[in-house]
């Protein structure tokens, strides 16, 4: 990073507008962002952040790619898909560093391991790569996928589960639907997909156009640092972590969100404590991309060195990986399983 950048200094930098499109409705995953907004991290960084909510997660990348918003929150698999289609979008920080997507069932379905899914009905959200998770999980457990009935229940995973119409769901988040089921004392059985044989990945990442990263490098850098501070604040005091989120969104259920925040705190930070907030593990991305390729979700191989950068992160570790987002002066990264384009 450019060490000359001083964001903690006493002189107020000029306020710069930046628009941030969430992945979905505001929720516990965004606790740090609202924290940063509430405790002044953004304004200290000289930023006015317009937080926007999308119609559905699928429209985020399109709006970012069109330049309608500067920064968006999306999912690692979606970013990889968009990259494969030639969109010059780059992940520059990870918001949730591990999978939230889980296999969830209720005790009466008696599903203790993936093996027990045989002959059962599983509800999914109708997202192609999540269907592929199910397939991978079943194959790993030695279950013939044909014996499992898959139902697309759209936006309605918990409803389907509670109505007894499905025995398990795959696609709900452990820190959200899972927490809700626990609060309802339904004693759900929750297993994140990475514990079932799906390679680990970053559930939520911040993305921007490559162009934006180059042209507004300083603003992005300050944004990342400010959001990082927000999540740090959440980690320091998880009990109060959800307060700004709840204050800004009166329609949220406080009990659920608080619990979700405290359950998720660890997932907001990299597993390796030495890495800064927002860190992405290039090797993990590579193996996840390889998995997508194997599943036929990605149609072709592509070099990963343009997909993500840790160059904007604060503190030690910043600057590893790529040097500058658009430059040609960095060594091309050879990633496992990948040849160049």
């Amino acid at each position: 990073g450019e060490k000359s950048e001083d964001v903690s200094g006493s002189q107020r930098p000029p306020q710069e507008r930046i628009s941030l499109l969430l992945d979905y409705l505001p929720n516990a995953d965004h606790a740090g962002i609202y924290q940063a907004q509430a405790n002044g991290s953004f304004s200290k960084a000289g930023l006015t952040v317009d937080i926007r909510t999308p119609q559905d997660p699928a429209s985020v990348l399109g709006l970012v790619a069109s330049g309608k918003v500067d920064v968006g929150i999306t999912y690692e698999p979606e970013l990889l898909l968009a990259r494969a289609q030639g969109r010059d979008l780059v992940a520059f920080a990870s918001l949730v560093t591990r999978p939230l997507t889980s296999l969830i069932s209720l005790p009466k379905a008696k599903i203790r391991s993936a093996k027990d899914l045989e002959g059962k009905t599983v509800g999914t959200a109708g997202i192609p790569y999540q269907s592929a998770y199910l397939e991978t999980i079943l194959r790993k457990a030695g279950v013939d996928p044909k014996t499992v009935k898959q139902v697309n229940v759209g936006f309605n995973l918990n409803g389907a589960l509670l109505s007894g119409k499905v025995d398990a769901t795959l696609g709900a988040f452990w820190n959200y639907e899972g927490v809700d089921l626990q609060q309802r004392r339904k004693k759900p059985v929750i297993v994140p997909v990475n514990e079932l044989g799906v390679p680990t990945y970053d559930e939520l990442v911040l993305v921007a156009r490559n162009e934006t990263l180059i042209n507004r490098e300083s603003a992005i850098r300050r944004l990342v640092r400010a959001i990082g501070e927000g999540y740090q604040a959440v980690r320091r005091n998880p009990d109060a972590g959800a307060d700004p989120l709840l204050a800004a969104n009166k329609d949220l259920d406080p009990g659920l969100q608080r619990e979700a925040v405290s359950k998720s705190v660890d997932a907001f930070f990299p597993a390796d404590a030495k890495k800064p907030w927002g860190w992405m593990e290039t090797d993990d991305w590579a193996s996840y991309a390889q998995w997508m390729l194997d599943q036929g979700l990605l149609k072709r191989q592509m070099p990963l060195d343009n997909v993500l950068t840790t160059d904007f992160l604060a503190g030690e570790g910043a600057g590893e990986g790529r040097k500058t987002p658009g430059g040609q002066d960095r060594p091309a990264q050879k990633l496992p399983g990948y040849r160049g384009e």
Partner: protein
Amino acid sequence: MTDRDRRPLPLSVRVVLGVLGPLLLLGAWEAYCRISDVDALLLPPPSDVATSLWEDRSLLWDTFLITAREIAFGLAVALVLGVVLAIAMHLSRVVRATLGPLVIGSQAIPLPVLAPILVFWLGFGIAPKLAIVAVICFFPVVVATLDALDRVDPDLTRLLRTMGAGRWQRLRWVELPAALPAALSGAKISVAIGAIAAVFAEYAGTEQGAGGLGHVIQSAQSGLATDRAFAAVAILAAFTIATTGALALAQRLLAPWAHRRPGDSP
């Protein structure tokens, strides 16, 4: 059964019955929730919904105002556009043949496909919501108005032509008044679906703090607070009933000749 049976019931009786119907439904619903094993997450009992109506009243009221504004403006746009388009299609066979299929085809575009591009064009403010409400609501107005214009007794228009009336004069004196009752009937359909249109419109993305009841429903549902979602729906339903009633009244006031009471005439 006599003529008397076709006269409307006294208002008081109608109000009582109109309240009774929903009450019966609520009773059955409450009973169903208690007896059956349906989870409150799927179908909260009316008592829960009532509680939520009361507890969240300030949130619901504020967001209702936002939604009501979206419905009102969106509908206004839809009505104006719909009537103008119907007239244009009525006046020109070329416009009709060219735009007809497009107008019908436009109805088959699901919102999730349309919304992102509207947001791209119009931003996250109220504009894309108005556009969505208008897109959903203008079609019934177009179809009903155009059909009614087509059914106008051609002898009346031709008679006006013998009086030297130009195209616009014929429209003003014959075709519009003749088509008015049916056009209002189309408007009634539009008003009723206006609420649902606004809900979908708000799914299209909002600025912080600017979400209406649709936003409440969406976040209540994903926040798994179904009772609040139903409370928001109850408000929308009440609003829809009120506006439709107002339009039915307008229909009688604006087109009295089309609503002769039995026994009025020789």
